């Protein structure tokens, strides 16, 4: 029979060996639920998708092995190829725009000296983050509406009626219009990360730069940007993965059209599975997306760590 004695200070006198064992195993115990969740809901479905991508699974009964037919069908489908080209355009546009505008907003906030004013603007910029995405897309549907939309009405008001466009109703503008949803992108996770990173910069470096007569532009270029590299790459990776997984604007605003102009891989996957009932082929799309996502993530990480000042 064992017992744990408590001394006067209330500290347990558990044998050191047991403490060592506990300190080694307890973290794993706490990690167990998370690991279980990851295995059940992430890894098993992922490996299952690899298997099903080689079958003609219809989500219910049919599940025969068909080799790489799903993959050859995919790469022979011009809609799928267009979806990847669109994804590259959409993601590039959005990544550049979000990084740029969020960074500018973060620098503007960072330059405010009054703590209370700075806090006010941070809150003002972050509050819209709680608005559900579907609501944002519906709001932008009204903004882009060719008949009653805000943009066309505004153009008309300032005498630029000739510039009015059916923004979502023609291939030349539809993808760009989707990429600019959320403009000016200040209410974003990117903004939060940049503000936090800037506020975390060592004050002595900033002050030294100021004392040395360094202009704001030089400071941003030579101090802020290099020191924010981790945050920038992190945001870029998130944006690339988001671009790869985007379906909401298609579901709400364009259905992938006009033509194939706003088709993206994730929406292609959704339609293949749920509209066409071709779950095997949808899994093949998922496998290709996973591969592309991994490649971009590895490249981004390599860029982040390549001769980084903050990593050994």
């Amino acid at each position, binding site marked *: 029979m064992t017992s744990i004695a408590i001394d006067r200070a209330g500290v347990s006198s558990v044998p050191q060996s047991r403490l060592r064992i506990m300190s080694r195993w307890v973290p794993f115990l706490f990690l167990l639920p998370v690991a279980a969740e990851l295995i059940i809901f992430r890894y098993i479905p992922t490996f299952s998708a690899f298997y099903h991508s080689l079958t003609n699974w219809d989500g219910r009964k049919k599940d025969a092995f068909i080799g790489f037919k799903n993959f050859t069908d995919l790469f022979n489908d011009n809609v799928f190829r267009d979806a990847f080209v669109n994804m590259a355009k959409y993601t590039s546009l959005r990544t550049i725009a979000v990084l740029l505008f969020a960074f500018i907003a973060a620098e503007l906030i960072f330059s405010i000296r009054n703590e209370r004013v700075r806090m006010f603007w941070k809150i003002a910029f972050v509050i819209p983050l709680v608005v559900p995405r579907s609501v944002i897309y519906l709001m932008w549907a009204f903004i882009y509406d060719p008949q009653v939309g805000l943009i066309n009405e505004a153009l008309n008001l300032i005498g630029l009626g000739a510039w009015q466009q059916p923004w979502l109703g023609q291939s030349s503008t539809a993808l760009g219009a989707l990429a600019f949803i959320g403009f000016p992108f200040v209410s974003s996770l990117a903004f939060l990360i940049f503000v936090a990173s800037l506020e975390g910069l060592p004050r002595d470096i900033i002050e030294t730069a100021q004392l040395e007569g360094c202009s704001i532009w030089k400071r941003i270029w030579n101090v802020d940007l290099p020191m924010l590299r981790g945050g920038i790459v992190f945001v870029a990776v998130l944006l690339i993965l988001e671009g790869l997984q985007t379906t909401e604007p298609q579901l709400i605003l364009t259905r992938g059209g006009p033509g194939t102009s706003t088709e993206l891989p994730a929406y292609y996957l959704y339609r293949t599975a749920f*509209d066409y009932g071709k779950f095997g082929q949808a899994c093949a799309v998922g496998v290709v997306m996973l591969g592309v996502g991994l490649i971009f993530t590895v490249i981004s990480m390599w860029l982040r760590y390549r001769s980084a000042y903050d990593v050994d």
Partner: protein
Amino acid sequence: MRLSILAKGLTMGLMGLTALTGAAYAQTTVKIYMGQLYAPDSDPRSKETMDAIIADYEKLHPDTKIEPVPWLGGDQSTYFAWLSTRYAAGDEPDIGWSHYYTRNAEADRWTALNEYLDGPNDYIPAGQPGHDKWNDEFFDNVKAQIRAPDGNWYQVNTNWVETGLFINNDLMKANGIDTNWASWTDFIKSCKNLKAKGIQPLGVFATPGWSTDQWLDTLLISAAFADQIPSWHLPAYENPFMKDRQLTPEEMAKATHDGKFSTTDPRFDTFLDLTKEVTDNCIVEGFAGITSLDQIMNLFFNDKVAMAWLGTWNAPTVRDTAKFSVTTTYFPPFTSQNSKYLTQPTIYRVGGPSSSGQFGISSGAADRGTLDASVDFLKFLTAPAQAQRIAAYDEGNLPVIKGVEPAEVAKGFSAISQLPERGITDAVSRYNGEQYGTPHNRLLQSFMLGEISRDEMKTQYQALLDKAVADQCEANSWDWCNK
């Protein structure tokens, strides 16, 4: 003695308890999804009526519990995504709503109802159609249209829809536009006049998914191939009730296989000409960026379009919302001036079984032991007594059960329902699957916008037709496929 009485009492009690428990275990639960016919949040009347119908049924069958799933909201793709997921999990409703063409394309998900339809429906009074043979209570033309390519019925239809042209009379009068069109050419002239006055004529939208342009598309393509369509009919699908019926997926596939429906046929050019004419002159600008009928109604209610092509199901909303005088009419007939392949001036109705009352039984119901109860409840639900109760609140649909009267607001569509049936159906069901309809819509959308040339359109479209036929032949092994 006392002990013996006690023992007997205990035994009786235990037996009673066992019987009760047994009865409880024997209770069958039938899960049903009725779409908008059971929408507690948005339409309390639907819940009130359906709950009352279910209560009446459960009173007759204490061993069966009917569990309605409330309407999911959103559009059809939300529902189909939900249904696919439920099927994958083996947890789909026993009785479910679906479009007849989607259901026929996914026949393995549903139970063939033929043997039940041939049997009696005891919920219909003796002497009335359907009492001896359940199938007799439904309209014959509807039954003909919902029959699957394999010859089975996977659903019963309690109602159907019509579509109509809703006209803003005040706007038309103020601009001196006469809407008593004698022909399609007159209609196009009115569109041109409206456009010249800066008014967008017609609220129709086009997307790669479902859209009202699909309706327009079927009118135009049916008019362009009018002289050929009857010769594509196959004996297996002929029925005395529908002379002017829509082609089935097999008939469509065979006509394509035989080169009768092809982009090299001059009729296809007529179809493209008609499409371009109506797009350039009538359809609202930005039509390819509009994704729902709600957006079209919004334009109509705000005087942004002079006319809107809507369905019977929109009629109650138009009645309750429009701040101007509205006339419900239909398009005038095409003449030989529009398509030289027409045998006589004709316009086709666009409507049909795609309505709120399309119910089938999951193929999983047999495995779950709920098939008999599901069939029985479906018989109860479709009996005229119940169908009339539903028709009273489901005003925008026309009942297709003998002896059931439509609501007042739907009666205006009766004349439209007498028009001939279009020969070629919506692109999503033309070749038995949305995987052919979506690319069709994409190509049409690009052509209408002038983003691809006619030749490019024809080349890509022919490739799509060939693929559809190859896939359908592989899936159905029709005997003509290898000839």
